[in-house]
Structures are given as C-alpha cells and as structure tokens.
C-alpha cells in the first residue's frame, strides 16, 4: 500500500521554496570571497567516497562519478573548500574494531537519471534535480556525523560538547562541508522548535534522544570509568541517528532552524529544555492536559484508513517493545558470557601452569588463549547486538510515539473544527433571536460574529483536510523508511553474526592441531 505513493505535491512546494532559495543563494555567493567556478573538480568527489566507505557499506564507484556532474552545476554557487585539510580525519568518530561498525544509516548519493551532458546551470534546473532526487525516495546528498565528544567545564556545570559535521552538495547550505560544536540541550532545543512548528500540521518529527540525569551526572562528576564512556558513546550514536533521520525528511530539511543548527558557529542556548525549568514544568502540565483531552474526544471517524492505521501502529508498538526487551536481554547475557569466558580463560591458564605433563600443559595454555580471544569476540558481538539492533528498535518505539502524537493532533484539529461549528450555530441562533427582538445595533454585531465564525469553520475544515492529507503522505513515507531501515539494519546485524562465526572457525581450527598434539 505504501508503495503506491504518488510523488507528493510536496514537490511543488519545494520548487517554490527552492526558487526563492536560489535567489537568496546568489546573494550569498556574491559575498563569498572565492568564486572560482571549478570545472569537474574530482577532489570533492573523493571525500564523500572515502568517508562513506568507512562509515557504511559505501556507494559504488559508479555513483560517485555522477556526483561529479553535480559538482559542475553547483560549482559557481559553492566556495571552493580545501577538502584535503587534515581536519577531515578527526571528524570520523573513533569507531570500534573493524569487525563490527555501528550503523550509520547514511544517505547515499542518488543514482541520477539524467545523462552527464546537462548543460549550463540554470536555477530552475537545479531545483528540478533536487526534487527528482526526492521523488526517488528521499535520497539527498547530505551526510551528518556526530563525533568527538568533549567535556567542557567542571563539576555540575560541566557538559559534553559534540562535533556535528555536515557534508553536502545541496545549494541551500553555504559550504560543502562544515562543522560546529553542539551540546545535548542544543539538540533538544532543535527538536522542540521543529515539533512546535510541524507536528500540529501533521508532520512526523523524529524524536530527540532521551535525557538521562543519572548518566549525565556520572559524566559531570568526572567518573572516567567504562560505564560513563559507554554512556557518552551511546548518546553520541543516538544524536547522530537523530540528525540523520531529521535531515532525511524533505520538509524539515528546508527549515531555517535546522540549517542554523547545522551551520552557525554560535547558537542561543536552549534553556527551555531543562527538565526543571519553568518551560519544562509547563510542558509536563500540557502533556497531562493533552492526555485527559484525548480521553474525552470522541471522534466519529469518517475515514477508515485512519482508524486502521492507528490500530496497526498500536500493534507495531507492542511487538517492537517485546522484541526490544528480548534484544536487551540478549545484550545483557552476551556481556555475561564474555565476562565468564574471560574468567574461564584465566582459570584454564592457571590449570595449564600446574599441569605437569608438558604437552597437556601447553594445550591448556592454548585453550586459555583461544577462550580469551573468544571473549573479545563476544564483547564485539554484544556491541553489535546493542548499537545495531537494540538501538534501532528503541528509536522506532520513540518514532511510533511521535506518529501517535500526530494522529492525536488531527483529532484535536477535528475537535477545533467541530467546536467552531457549534459556536457558529449558537451565533446564528443568537442572531435569529435578535431579529425577532428587533435590536438593530446588536444585530450588526451578531451578523459580524457570524461572518467571523463562518470563516473559522471554513478554516477549521480546511485545516482538518490538510492535516489528514499530510498525515497520509507522512505515514506513507514513514512506512517506506521503516521498511528500508529495518532491512538495512537487520542485514547489517546478521553480517556481524557472520563475522563472529568466521572468527570462531579460525580460532578453533588453529586450536585443533594443538589438542591433537597432546601425546
């Protein structure tokens, strides 16, 4: 069902937006110092290729060639950035052992439809291409990395600053590649702004990672142990996934707040995101009020699609939670297995030492070594269990909450429309009464009010239809993304399992002759 989504009218809106943007873009480019139009510059192409291949299963060379084309078109709009700069490397977040890499659902370069012989860059054409990319399934040329967590300050006022690096060829940004430092509350602030602007008109805004007072306090206090490093890494990965999901959304990508978040070096501090602030408490009160309202709104659903979808999401939510719990148990047990294997390895080594038969003693030491290596393997697998599988499930559980939120907004919108209709009816009745009572001055006021409420009813209906339309589109997009995400991630997870088995085979194959050599 989701597959039959027609290229959304979003495209039209986008064209308009982009056209405006392009005008603005020209303004900017004139202020930029170097305006060298570099014909097919191979350098920029290399950069995304290398990084993409280390971050994920990178794009094939063919796609990179197409990137070249794009460079031509944007050449005059973009400043030539020195992409051989050494700062490139630190931007790649320190990933763990090559065997298993955490997932970064990177948006890859879209395979282009047009031939390479596209002529002189026309503003209109450029926007067309970008829309076409979008129609091909939200494949944008923008890549976000969150890396280098750094502790800033001391004691309870300390915080972690993360480097957010953007690589893009989209013309709406000033540069092709840039990075900024952001702290966790900045991310929350961004989400808060986007949610306020878009959720009530039906857009599914990806939720930000959750706050954790316990985790953060440990970091602030300065505990340099493995659990706080793990916490920071978990958060870094979550922030990265959050941004990647957000920029994948065609409407959100256009948002100036998002652009400011990615680009500006200075960002006003989002104090309203603090849990115990005035705004925080207000949020909690509103949430409670919403919950009560939800229970009291009885909407007669004229569109079966919405009812069906809500039920489906409810089911999906339950299933995902169950699966998530099982995977979390797996992570826990795998870590236990790793610890127990390590303990056994040490014990076997001791046993080997006290064994007085030389060959057996040696074999036992070898066994200890094998088990130690296997312990490492288990640790890496647990890492994959968590970062690849478990976190995806957690993300989707939160995303579905956002989807449910959007459905709730639609209900509220309906309620507002209904209320307007009721008020209009009352006003009409009041007017009728006044007609009979023959009070001309009040009558005019009544007629004005009727007009006012007629407009409101019309607006209410329009809003409701709009939000319904948007939600349909959003859900279609969401389902497509979900399918893609799950397939990619699960395949990646299975590949991690493959790696583990291959390593196990290697280790035991090496041990077998040692065991046979006991004479």
């Amino acid at each position, binding site marked *: 069902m989701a597959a039959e989504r027609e290229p959304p009218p979003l495209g039209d809106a986008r064209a308009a937006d982009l056209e405006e943007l392009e005008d603005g873009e020209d303004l900017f480019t004139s202020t930029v110092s170097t305006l060298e139009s570099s014909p097919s510059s191979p350098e920029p192409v290399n950069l995304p290729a290398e990084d993409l291949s280390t971050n994920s299963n990178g794009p094939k060379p063919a796609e990179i060639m197409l990137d070249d084309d794009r460079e031509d078109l944007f050449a005059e709009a973009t400043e030539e950035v020195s992409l051989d700069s050494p700062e490139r490397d630190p931007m790649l977040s320190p990933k763990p052992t090559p065997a298993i890499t955490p997932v970064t659902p990177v948006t890859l370069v879209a395979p282009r439809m047009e031939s390479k012989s596209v002529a002189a860059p026309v503003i209109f054409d450029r926007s067309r291409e970008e829309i076409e990319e979008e129609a091909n399934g939200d494949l944008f040329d923008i890549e976000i990395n969150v890396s280098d967590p750094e502790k800033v300050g001391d004691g309870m006022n300390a915080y972690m600053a993360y480097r957010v690096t953007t690589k893009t060829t989209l013309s709406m940004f000033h540069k092709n590649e840039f990075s900024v430092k952001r702290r966790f509350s900045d991310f929350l602030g961004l989400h808060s702004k986007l949610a306020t602007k878009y959720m009530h008109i039906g857009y599914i805004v990806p939720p930000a990672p959750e706050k954790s007072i316990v985790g953060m306090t440990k970091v602030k206090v300065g505990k340099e142990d493995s659990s706080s490093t793990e916490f920071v890494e978990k958060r870094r990965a979550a922030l990265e996934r959050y941004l990647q999901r957000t920029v994948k959304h065609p409407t959100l990508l256009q948002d100036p707040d998002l652009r400011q978040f990615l680009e500006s070096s200075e960002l006003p501090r989002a104090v309203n995101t603090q849990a115990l602030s005035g705004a925080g408490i207000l949020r909690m009160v509103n949430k409670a009020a919403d919950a009560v309202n939800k229970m009291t709104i009885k909407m007669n659903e004229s569109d079966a699609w919405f009812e069906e979808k809500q039920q489906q999401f409810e089911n999906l939510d339950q299933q995902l939670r169950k699966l998530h719990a099982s995977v979390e148990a797996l992570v826990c047990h795998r870590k*236990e297995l790793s610890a127990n294997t390590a303990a056994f390895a040490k014990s076997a080594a001791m046993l080997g030492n006290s064994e007085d038969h030389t060959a057996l003693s040696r074999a036992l030491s070898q066994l200890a070594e094998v088990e130690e290596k296997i312990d490492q393997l288990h640790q890496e697998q647990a890492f994959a269990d968590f970062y690849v599988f478990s976190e995806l499930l957690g993300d989707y559980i939160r995303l579905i909450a956002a989807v449910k939120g959007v459905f709730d907004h639609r209900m509220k919108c309906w309620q507002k429309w209904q209320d307007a209709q009721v008020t209009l009816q009352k006003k009409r009745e009041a007017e009728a009464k006044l007609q009979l009572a023959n009070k001309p001055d009040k009558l005019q006021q009544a007629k004005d009010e009727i007009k006012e409420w007629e407009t409101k009813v019309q607006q209410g209906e329009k809003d409701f239809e709009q939000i319904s339309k948007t939600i349909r589109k959003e859900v279609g997009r969401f389902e497509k993304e979900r399918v893609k995400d799950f397939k990619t991630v699960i395949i990646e997870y299975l590949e991690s399992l493959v790696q583990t088995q291959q390593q196990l085979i290697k280790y035991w194959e090496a041990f077998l002759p040692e065991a046979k050599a006991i004479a």
Partner: protein
Amino acid sequence: MTTTLTEIKHLPTLALLVCCEYLAIFKKTVAMHEVFLCRVAAHPILRKDLNFHVFLEYNQDLSVRGKNKKEKLEDFFKNMVKSADGVIVSGVKDVDDFFEHERTFLVEYHNRVKDASAKSDKMTRSHKNVADDYNRIGSSLYSLGTQDSTDICKFFLKVSELFDKTRKIEARVSADEDLKLSDLLKYYLRESQAAKDLLYRRSRSLVDYENANKALDKARAKNKDVLQAETTQQICCQKFEKISESAKQELIDFKTRRVAAFRKNLVELAELELKHAKGNLQLLQSCLAVLNGDT
C-alpha cells in the same frame, strides 16, 4: 487475540525445546556412567570384584538400597575425622621424592581444577542463556512478521526462522561445551580428590608404621611385649609397602588417564565447536543470500 494464536503456533517449538534439554542431560548422564564403568573395568584389581560382575551381568532388577540415615551419619563422621586427621598427617614430610612431588602437585592441581570447573559451568550456563534469548527474539520476529502490513513481513518471517535454527545450534554448543569441558573438569576434580585421599591413606599408614617402629624400640628397651611389638611393626611395614607400591602405580595411571581424557575431550570439543560454527555460518550466509536477493 492474534498474539495468542502466534504463541500457540510456537508450542511445537516449546515442546522441542524441552525434548532437546532432556536429550542433552541424558547424553551427559550416560557419558558419565560410561566413563565410570570403563574405569572400573580397566583396573587390574577392581575388575575382578564380584559386585562389578553382578552389576554387569545380572539381567534382572538390582535392588540397590540407598544409604539409610545411620550410614549417612557414619559417612559424615568419617569425613570429619578424615579431614582433621589429614591435616595432622599432611604435616609429615615424606622421604620418598615421588610421593612428596605428587602431594604438592595434587594439592595445587585439585584447587585449580575446582576453579576451572566452576568457571566452565558459569560459561556454559551463559551460553545457554544466549540461546534462550535467540528463541524469544525468534518468536517476537515471527509475531512481527505475521502482523506487519508492509512487504517487510516476509523479511521478518525469514529472519525469525533463522533465529529459530541458529538457536538450536547455540543450544548444542552450550550442551557440548558442558559435556566435553565442564564434565571433564568436574570428573577430574573428583579424581584428584580421590588421589589426594589415596595419598592420605598412605601417609596414615606411614605414620602408623613410624609409630610401630617407635613402639618396637620402646619395647626392646624395656624388654616387654617385644614379640607383639615386632608383629605389629611387621604388619605396618607390609601394609605401608603394599600401599606405597599400589599408590605409585595408581598415581602414574592417574596421570596417563588424565592426559588421555583431556586429549580426547579437547579434540572432540574443538571438532564440535568447529562443526557448529560452520553450521551457523552456513545458515547465516544462506539466509543473507535470500534476504539480499529479495531487497
């Protein structure tokens, strides 16, 4: 409602699980019994024991009586005395280098085997927990697959199937590790304890022999009950020499058997681990081929 339906569909798997567990435990017990009987049969003296013959040949039910309370209490006290005595006796330094070395070796070895056995147990139990988790994940994926409205349902069902199959392999890995490693170590824990007990008995008889010597000297000095003292001393001497001779042989055999058993089990362990890892790998790779082909 649909949840219970899927749970019912998974009942055969539950029954299968229980079967697999039972089989694993059965295999274990049978293996232990076999090792025990082979040991007795291989022993030059024990193999001639009448009880052993009856056990092997009598084709009707052996009505074996378990130890009653009195006998259990006797055992308990015997053990107490033995350990107390063992402490005293172990203080006696042995003239014979062989036995001295053996004692030092056995004490340390026994402790380390005990530790290794406990750690191996924990490790195999963890492995089993992981296998159980795979089972739960498999059934969750199955539910997801049967309820999803998009084209990912086929995908989920395939992965659910994979988890079911890989879980079986993981459970077998755990069972085999238990059989080949944990049980081996447990066995040698008890064997080394038995060897220690043997050394204790020898030390005991050595102490008795030395005491008998002292008594003889005293008797000769006092010229009283010399003949009796001589006889006692003779008996103690014989006993001591006999036990020393058989103990020496037993301990040498112990080493030979130990090396052979470890070799056999470690080789079999490695072979089984390899077999299972290869099986797992093939499962995963064929599943991935199907999934990648579909997408």
